[in-house]
Structure formats: C-alpha cells, structure tokens
C-alpha cells in the first residue's frame, strides 16, 4: 500500500470521514505502515497509549489478561476498524492486549498527531464524539440486556 491508497482507506473510516482533504493526506503521510505476522502483539495491556491503529488488511483480536493469567476475549476487529483511540484521548495506558489473527496490515498514527488533527478541526472532533457516543450507547444497551438477564441483586 502506498500513500494514495492510505488516503482512501482513511477516508472510509467514520472518525476521519469528516476530515478535510489536506488533514487526511497529512494523516496518511505521517502515519507508519506496519505489518504483523499471525499472533504478533500490536500492544499489551499497560503499555503507554501513544498511538492509534487502523486495520486495513487482516483481523485483530482484543483480549484481557485476568489476574489469574486466564484470558478473556473481548472483540475481534477487522478491515477499516480503528483501535487505541480511547487510550490516546484520555492519556491512559492500554486497557487490553491486541494480537494479529493471521497476517495483518495496519496504519499506525502517532498519538499526538491524531490529537492535533482531531482537536484542531471541529468536524473531526465531532466525528470522534459521534463514534465515542455510539460506542457508549452500544455498551449501555448491552449493559441493560445483561442486567435484565441477571437475577435482582439482593439489597444488603
């Protein structure tokens, strides 16, 4: 993949869809093009959250290591999915492990570049807000469903 293809990949991603063309090109130009082999880690839980990944080929698995060394699978993301943006926005360490499932290609955007473009551009900031709000909405719905499935908690 080269620079021009990266621009078109980024354009299809909801968070960046509203970015103007120069910012999008800048994003494509300043990001790194990384490839991973099956099972290789993109990041580990607790790593500093300093970059955002955009998958453009292959799939990743997001998982959590439990204190007893067990592992729970959280999500599987694929083409045109974005990950790691929460850690960058909140200046938090990575909250989960991310591994490649099969050969994987991603664009890696430096955290500060991401923040500058997203905060420096009202449209992009709005796009980002919408993505996060949608995610929150989804989680709230899931939480509601879960709560309905659970027996009523006993009041202490």
């Amino acid at each position: 993949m080269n620079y021009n293809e990266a621009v078109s990949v980024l354009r299809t991603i909801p968070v960046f869809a509203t970015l103007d063309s120069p910012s999008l090109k800048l994003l494509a130009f300043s990001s790194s093009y990384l490839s991973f082999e099956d099972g290789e880690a993109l990041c580990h839980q607790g790593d500093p959250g300093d970059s955002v990944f955009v998958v453009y080929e292959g799939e990743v698995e997001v998982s959590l290591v439990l204190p007893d060394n067990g592992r729970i699978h959280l999500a599987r993301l694929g083409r045109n999915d974005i990950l790691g943006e929460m850690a960058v926005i909140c200046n938090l360490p990575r909250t989960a492990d991310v591994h490649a499932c099969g050969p994987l290609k991603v664009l890696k955007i430096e955290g500060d570049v991401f923040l500058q473009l997203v905060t420096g551009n009202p449209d992009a900031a709005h796009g980002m807000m919408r993505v996060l709000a949608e995610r929150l909405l989804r989680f709230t719905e899931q939480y509601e469903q879960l709560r309905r499935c659970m027996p009523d908690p006993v009041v202490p």
Partner: protein
Amino acid sequence: MEQTLFGYIRRYSWREQIILLVMTCASFPFLYASLELPKIIINQAIAASNFPRNFYGFEVEQAQYLAILCAVFLLLVGANGGFKYFVNVYKGRLGERMLRRLRYQLFTQTLRFPIPHFRRTSQGEVIAMITAEVEPLGGFIGDAVAQPAFQGGTLLTILAFMFAQDIVLGIAAIALYPVQMYLIPKLQRQVNALAKQRVRTVRRLAERIGEGISGIEEIHANDTAERHRADFAGWVGTIYDIRLQIYRKKFFIKFLNNFLAQLTPFFFYSIGGYLVIHGELTFGALVAVLSAYKDLSSPWKELLDWYQQKEDTRVKYDQLVEQFRPAGMLAEDLQQPVTGPVPRLSGAVVASHVSLEDEVGVKAVDQASFQFEIGQRVALAGGPGSGADSIARLLARLLHPTAGAISIGGQPLASMPEAVTGRRIGFVGSHVLLINGTLRDNLCYGLYNREVPEAETVDERGRAARSSYVFEAGQSGNTTSRIEGHWIDYAFYDLAGPAELQARVLETLRLVDLEGDLFSLGLRGTVDPQRHEQLTHRILQARSVLRKRLQERRYQGLVEIFDRNIYNQNMSVAENLLFGLPVGKGFDLDHLGEHPYVQKVLTDVGLRDDFFVIGLQMAKIMVDLLRDLPAGHEFFDRFSFISSNDLPEYQAAIRRVEQAGFEDADPDDRNLLSSLPFRGVPARHRLGLMDAAFENRLLQARHAFADGLPETLRASVAFFDADAYNPAASVQDNILFGKLVYGRQQAQRQIGALIAELLDGLNLRAAIVDLGLDFNVGIGGSRLSVPQRQKLAIGRALLKRPDLLILDEATASIDPAGQAALRAALLHDERLPGQVWVISDVQQAHGFDYVIIVEGGRIAAQGPAAEILGAWSPDAVDA
C-alpha cells in the same frame, strides 16, 4: 535609569563628551586656517610680484613660495580630515557604547519586571522597544554635545566677523533669531506630542501584528481575516494621520525658518543699501556681510535640526523610561550575582495573612496563613481557580504578595536575593519552557547561575580576544560574564567535578524516568572514532555479536543489513546512492542533486530525468500537504522533506516548471527539485514513485559512484564497511550495520531490547546515555514529547538539590502509572527535604505529611495529612 535623557548622557558619558568638546574646539583653528589660506595663496603667492621675499628667515622665489603654501594647505586638509575622522569615529563609538548600555539596561529591567506585568505587556512591544526604538538614541548621544558646540562655535565665529564689519548689520543678521527661538520650541512641542502619540500607536500596531500571528489559527478557524485586516487598517490609518500632521508641522517649521532666513537679506539690502548710499558703509563690507550671512545659515540650520532631533530623542527616551519602570519591580540588588555564601533554607515556612490581588482587585489568594517545616511533604490541594497554584508561585517568589508576608527560617522571603530563591527553591509548573540547546544544557540550566572564573588555559590570542571583550563590555556597563565561559560552580552544588555531576545527571535521569529515552536518543547520535576510540571499538564488538544473534528466528525480517549489491528499502535514496554517508561539506544531503559529480553519475546511468520527474511529484505532494500549516509547525520538522521556510521556494519552482514545460525548465529549478528524491526513504514514505527499474539503475549508479569517485572527494564519503566504524552513521546503525525495517513494529522493540542487552553486557549504557545528552531539543523543546519535556523540567529542578521543591501540577502530562511512580520516588527521597505539591484532589494526598486545602483563594482547612484525610473522606461528606 536616569529620569532624563541629558541626565543619562551626563552620567554615563561625561568624560567622552568632554573629550569630544575639546577635540572639536581644537579643530577650529585648523578649520579657520584652511579657510584663510586660499586667500593668502591667491593674493600673496599667485597675484603678488614682490619676489624673492623673506619667509621665516629664508629667501624664497614665487614658485617656491607657492609650493610651500600649497604644501601647508595640503597638510591642513589632512589635519582637518584627521580631526573629522577622529571625532566621527569617537562619536560613533560613543553612540554604539551608549546604545549597547541602554539595550542592556532595558533587558536587565525586563528581567526584573513583576511576572503579572507580562500579562499586560505584549512581547512584540518589548522587543520593538529594545531593538528598533532605541536605535536612534545611540546616534544622538554621540552628537549630543559635540554637534551644538561645533555648529554653535562656527556660528559665533561668523557672527563675530559680521559684528566686526558693522554692528548694525550684525544686529540685523540676528534680529529674527529671538522670534525663531520663541516660535520654534512652541511648534516643536506640538510635534513632540504627536511623536509621543505615534510611538504609542506603533506599539499598539506591533501588538496587533503579534495577536494576528499568535491567533492565526483562530483567524482561519473563524473566518475573521477581514476583521483583523480592518483593525490593522484602522491602526495604520491612525499612524498615517499622526505622521501627516507631524509632516505638516515639521515642514511648517522649516518654512518659517526659511522665510525668516530670507527675511534677513531683505534687511541687508534695504538697511545696508541705505547705509551704502549715504556713505556710512563701504560697498565691500556689505558684500562681505552678505556672503558671511550665507555661511551663517548652514550652522544655524544645523543647530535647529539638532534641536528637533534632541526633542525627538528626548520623547523616545522618556517613553522608554516610563515603559520600563512598572510598579513592583524586583529590587536590583536581589538579582545581582552574589559572590558570598548562599545560605541553605531550613526551619519553618510561615505565611501570614498573605493576599494576592490583581490590578482589577480580584483576589487570587485571600488572607492565607499557614505554616510548615522544611523537611515535610506538603500538599496544596485545590483545583483550577482555587488559588493553590498562586500560593505555589508565591512560595517560589515568582509572585509577590500584595499584602502579608512569607518567611522561611525566620528570614523574609521578599528580601532574599534571587541567588537564594533561585538555587535553594526548585519550582516546576505545568507549562515547561526549554531553551534551544542540548538536553544537557537544559538539564543543567539551573546550575548556570554565574560565570565561574577558571584557570587560564587559552592561548595568547584567545586571552587577548577575551580581554578586549571584557574591556568593551565594561565600557558599556554590560556584565563581563561571557556566555562561552564556564558556568557550573561544582563546589556550590556539592559536586567534586564534572565526573560527579555526570553521576548525578544519570541518577536524576533514572529518577524522572528519562534514562530509557536518552538511551534511545544516544543510539541515534554519532561518535567521533578518533576521540572515542575505546567506545567505537566496543561498538564494533557489539556489531559482530549482534550479527550472529540476528540469525535467530525471532529477529528474522526486522533488520535490513547493508549490502553493497542490494537496494536498501529502509534507507534514504541518498544513502543508497552513496552506500555511505557524507562527511564534512563535500556532499550536502539537502542539495545532492546539484553536485556535479552526482549529476555526472546519474546522467551516465540515465537517471537524471527520473530524479527531476520524481522530485517534481514529491514537491507537489509536500506542497499540497503542508501549505495550510502555519510556518514553523512541528509537523515540518517531523515529517516533511521541506522546511517551512523553503516551502514558498518550492511552490514557486513548481509553478515555473509547469509554465515553462518539463524540457525547458530553468536549471536552478531542476536542481532544486532533483534534490528532493534523495531525501525519501522508500519503506517509510511509500509515495509509490520509484519502481524496480529505478532501483536497479540506482544500484548501477552506486557502483559507478564509488568506482569513479575522484581522489579529492574520497574523504567526503564514509562508505559502509562491515569491519569499520562509520563516523557519520548513528550508533544504532553502526551496531546494526543495517537499518531497522520500518513496517515492523517489533523491530523497534525487539531489536531495541537486543541492542540494550548487548550494550549492557559491554557496560556501555552510561556512555550511550551520555551521547543522548547531546541531543538538541529544538526551539522550546519541540523535538521532545510533552511528557519528556515535563520530566526534563523536573530533572532540572532536582539536579540542583533544592531545599524546597515546589511542583505545581508538574506531572500532569505524564501517564498515570509514571506519575504515581515519580511521586513515590520523590516523596521518599531524603535528599529533597522540603516538598510542596499542588494537587487537584484531597484524596490524592496520601503519602504527604501536611495538607493545606485551598478554596476560592482561602485556606479551607489545614493539618497533618492523617487528620485531614480522615475529616475529608467521602464518608464524612455524606454524613
């Protein structure tokens, strides 16, 4: 600084002014003689006939006499020129010295301004005042006394001559002077008022420009360019009006002068003519007076000009003085370098009824009283706007209380010299400013308090240069400390010497968690093998060990080894062509396309045009990407092939090439654009502009380049050689003898770990970290990340081992785990006795001894941490 301009001139230059005056007076007889001599030559040597005659005891013929007089004339011309030269140089030097002194004083004053004053004073204004506005002052000071003396002297001489001819005519000549002397100052005062207004308005204009530049994003983001243009137009309009009025008045003064000057001959013709008709004055005398009057007008004009200039300068001076004397300036002696001992701080820090009120009466701190001991860990708890940050700044004496007082160990903080507050107190805020220099400079910044006299080690010429600098600096009242001197007083900071400082630096870097970062930076640095033979030898050892380790499966595909016969995707096109790196100035990587030898090699393999085509495309992409970024944006430094300064040049070149057509492009544009592809790294930039055929031909070019390299250029390239250290390549590239592969995230991590392991095994870590200290942080530290800058600022404060360390949200941008670790490490460090931390939430006050809660500028509660934490727990709030 003196209140008035002439007070200033008297105080700092009276000796020089007297010398100038004496020299000016001494020149008068010569001037007079040189005016007199032509008359003698004509009347007595050329036109006379009584020769031979006696000349000082010698019999001389006419021709001889003429020759002697002409020789004297030549001597006089030389002497006059000599006087003029001396006086002018002397005046110039005096003016420049005074200018230097004035600027130095103004800057010194600026350093003493109360910090809140900078909120009201724009940077642009201060810069304009110290740079441009003082400039004419220096010139005037040279002329201040000599000019009126010279012109006045000339004037008096001519007047005396006129009075000698005829008293009435003499009186007529100066009859109108009183009128001029009365009218002109009156008019001049109006001009002065306008000049004052103009200076003020220009300053406002500077402020508007500054606002436009710093707010450029807002302007773009809000489409307010037109509004700013209108505002600007308004201000330049005001300046236009003022200047026009000044011109009108100035030229009216001129007109009046000219008119009055011409009025006098009217008197001569009428009164003088009348006198001649009646035989009371000879015709010759009238002609002499008339011609003398012509000579009179020039010095008189000069005197009036001088007067106008004096008034102009006086206005400027008054305004400078007024601007540079804000209320609440730090007393001058508190900022002077001290030579005596600087006491350590100990005992109780007591604040009693401290208030801080800004100019409009808002109290940021209101009647705060508290007390703690140096040796305690104190938390100042309060969110933004609570006043906790102001209290921290008051404790560091960056702000001065408007009421109440703070004392440390019984000594009032307000009267401590900056040598005490600046060295014994360490303050780090959330906003960090780094100086443009190396990491080492920034880390040791807090130790650069004054120049330390050192043993004379420089040679004769160096010493002479130094002493002349010191002499000149002294003549202008500047400090004689030199920035190139030695600035670290090791003994003062309990250090035996550079080696111990180095150890403390390393320890500090570990404490603030920067050691790893510096290790990485050190790996990117270069080493001179001649100076560090041992180090480079060990690095070569590391290379050979690494070579074997890279065979392991987990390292496969992470490093692209240098191979003379393979095109390396992970190094720049320039490196690919050279298969090495340039040394010295023989090959300039930024202008490689212009080098005749490179051009020849590329032409031979048929790549000249390809470079031009690719360069043009690259330039278009870069211009397209970057044209909307503000100049100096950090993206230029980090990502661009083209710096923000050069961008317009490339834009213009693209336009010209497109107009002229590819074939007829200007050679300069061709060279400029052909140099761009050299900077691209194929695997990193992936612009997709170079294909396999290009790569093959570049490999041919590589061989041709090395084979045909002329003897004179041999030393300009450090070729990659598997058995030699490459002085131009980074330490990392030397260890790897290859490049990390860009597309593999593991490359950085895994190979980094491997390199670290090898270097640790060879005991080289400290040496590499030391190299990292030479990394240039860029303007304002722009080449470091924000957390790195903050850690560096904390390290800077720790390095001087302050008795009282004040941290105002200084760790905010560090990641939470790093923050917690740093806080724990600092709070447990016994070598940092007093610590005050501003924290936003009382709940974070674990680990502190004493807690002060600030709300709305007042102390809401204070006490030992255990008590306060108990009382302010969420349960207590609920109850």
